[in-house]
Structures are given as structure tokens and as C-alpha cells.
């Protein structure tokens, strides 16, 4: 069975044909070459594959490809504009919130989803927003600090 998908990825509308047994994560990495989104556990526990779908953070390893029809997807590649990093990304650099970098795209997307709904989150809200993102290197302090510094309208 081949299906046709129509959706928006990083503000670009696209159409592609695929099989229904693929995940959003597979579409991103294998069809669209958007390898910023990482595969970690593949069962929704680590958050490395987090992307923003219709304004909400989701694990792209748990979204079936046909479920993204008509959706707006934002990945880490969509954060930078005109070759300039998003200031959320700048703050990750400034605070040393990146060590091996594997969790970073997911962390950024969870943070982005939070900040786009809640521009001035408390520390508790930040922790809640990234509770589904595992980091095994830096610890979470630098990441939380980076997100807390990114206040205001992030778009």
C-alpha cells in the first residue's frame, strides 16, 4: 500500500509518497534528509526525536506517517533563519547546555513548544516541559538556565 502525504515541514508545503508503516521520524531522516532529529529509544521514553507538530511537542518515533497528513511540522532545522541561529539555540551555546549534543534537538523542540505557548515559564514549568527529554551528559541545570533566559516572543 502506497499513500500520499501532504504536510508542511519547516514552513514548506510538500507532498510525498510512502508506505503507511513508517514513522514521522523515518520520513524526516530518510525521505527529507532532516537528520537533526535523532532516534534514541524509539519507544517514547527519551525524547531525542521530539519535533513540534501543530504547535505541540511530540515524539516523532510514535507518530505514524499517515497521521501527519495536513499537519505543520517544525524540526530543529527550522529554528534557524537566514543562517542565523534562533536565540534559543544561542542561549544553549551561551550556557554550555550542549555536551555530546544527542539530546539537544529534542530539548530545543520541547523548549520551543513550551515558549511558544508560555513566553515566561517558571523553572517548574520548564522542568515539566523537558521531563520527557533525557540528557546523559551535562545534567539539566545548564539546559534549564538556557531556556529560562529565552523569554518573550520567540517566533
Amino acid at each position, binding site marked *: 500500500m502506497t499513500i500520499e502525504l501532504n504536510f508542511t515541514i519547516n514552513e514548506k508545503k510538500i507532498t510525498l509518497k510512502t508506505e503507511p508503516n513508517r514513522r514521522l521520524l523515518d520520513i524526516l531522516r530518510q525521505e527529507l534528509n532532516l537528520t537533526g532529529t535523532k532516534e534514541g529509544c524509539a519507544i517514547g521514553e527519551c525524547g531525542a526525536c521530539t519535533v513540534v507538530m501543530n504547535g*505541540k511537542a511530540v*515524539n516523532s518515533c510514535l*507518530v505514524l506517517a499517515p497521521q501527519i497528513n495536513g499537519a505543520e511540522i517544525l524540526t530543529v532545522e527550522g529554528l534557524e533563519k537566514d543562517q542565523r541561529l534562533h536565540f534559543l539555540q544561542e542561549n544553549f551555546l551561551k550556557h554550555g547546555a550542549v555536551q555530546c549534543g544527542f539530546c539537544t534537538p529534542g530539548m530545543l523542540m520541547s523548549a520551543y513548544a513550551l515558549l511558544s505557548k508560555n513566553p515566561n515559564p517558571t523553572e517548574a514549568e520548564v522542568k515539566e516541559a523537558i521531563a520527557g527529554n533525557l540528557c546523559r551528559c551535562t545534567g539539566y541545570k545548564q539546559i534549564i538556565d538556557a531556556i529560562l533566559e529565552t523569554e518573550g516572543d520567540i517566533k
Partner: protein
Amino acid sequence: MIPKIEYFSPVNLTELLKLLDRHQQAAKIIAGGTDIIAGFHQGSARFKGIKYLIDLNWIDELKKVELSSDGIVIGSAASFSEILKNELINHHFPLLSTAASRVGSVQIRNRATIGGNFVNNAPCADSVPALLVYDAEIRIRSVEAERAVSLADFLLKPYQTQLRSDEVVTQIRLPFLSENYLGDFYKLGRRRGVAISRITLAVLMKLVESKIDDIRIASGAVTPIGKRFVSLEQFARGKTVSDHLYRELARMLGNEILDATGLRWSSAYKLPVVQQTFYQQLQHIYQTGNLR
């Protein structure tokens, strides 16, 4: 790996029911996908032999949360994020809001649905103890008929329910409670976020002049399936609250759980934890009740 499947996206109940009727056991319903896609990846025996996936996400009426004359009606495909931000649920059924807030992570709650939480009858389903103390009734549809059944009766044994392969759960109905119920929901996992429950307890209590007018107690994870403790509830009704009674009830709850599970390797740890937790819940409920 997800097996080769055919995928259907019905846009209304009629289409959905026809598909279920046609494909029966070869078909599986998908909504949030947080159980089934992870299950495929892990090669779970629960998802073997599936040829068709039928998606509920395109059927708007299954996602609504509405008032009815005597309670609220939650569409089975409402996500936990929707449930969490719903004022009606938060106001009238706060234990369900608390339980919803403890499910998975933001990412999981944005996808996972309330129906999906109990249709697989996993013992650790976080919403089940809360739904049980609220006397949840569920509505089930097939091509031929609609039926209503209490959630307690719907859940048969671990990973088994009353649901037939041509049926779908469409609604969860929670009847309003009379005034003055107080309650508490407790979840213990190995960590706070993204944790599979080891113990869940939900308690609702209505006190009239220091007497227990009504009490409802339900557990999850620590029993083979989420369950109410009917005989314990009966024992407690009409009794005057006291520290002694709370200790007695906690001791009895432990015994009932041991009867339900048999001795497990984890019993030496879990039983005293359950008993102490339940004791503290009763104390807490009484104390906050006194503040009113």
C-alpha cells in the same frame, strides 16, 4: 519494526464501524499510537498478526469533552493534554486531572488518549484508579448496537477486556458527585517523569459529622488490574473516623492486595508502602476536610 499494514482514516463513526466489522481480528485501532507503535518496535505479542490499522484521529466527535445532564462525557480519543487543560474535568473530577498530569511526558500526553489508556487493560494505566472511583461508565459501539458498561466490569483481567473485535469504545461518562467529596490520587514510579506506575491509589471520601458517609478506593499497578475495594468500602461506611480506623483500613487494604496478587518478590517493599500511603491519604483527606 512496524509490520506491513494497510492504514484507514475514517472520518466518522459509521465508516469506522464498517471497517471494524469487515476486518475484525486482523484490524487494530490506533489513536495516539503511544502503546501500539512502541509495542511494534518491541515485538510485543499483543500486536502480532495485525494487517490493518484504523485511525481514530480523524473522527472529531471522539475527541470532544462535553457536559451532559448528569455529568461529563469524554470522547475516547481525547488526549491527556486536552483532559489536563479542561476546566470542567479539573473542577468536577480533579483526581482524573491529577492522574492525567502524571501520565508519561508532555510529548506522550499530547498524543496518548484516555480510551487508549484502558482498552489494553495494562495494570499500570494511570487514569484507571481515578476513573474507577468516579464510577466511570463507558459506551461501546459496533455496527449492530451501542452498549453501556461500567469500567469496573469492562476490565476483565490483565490485557483483557470485554471489547470485541468489531467494537470501539466511543465515550467515557463520569456522573457528577454530590457535594463534599474529598479525595486524593497517588502515583509511585521509579522516577517522576515518564515513569511506569508501580503503585497508584485513588481515594474519594464523603464525611458527614465525622462519619464516613461514602468512601471509594481503587488501586492500579499494585493489583493485577485496576480495581475497586468494594468490601473494604462497605466495612468503612458509617464508621466514625479516627486514627485507629485509618490504621485498620490500611491494614485491611494490604491484606486485600495480597489476596489479589499472591506473594510477589516485591511484596516486602510494596505492601508497607501501600499501607502507609493509604493511611496518609486518609489523614490528608480528613485534615483538608477540616479546613473547610
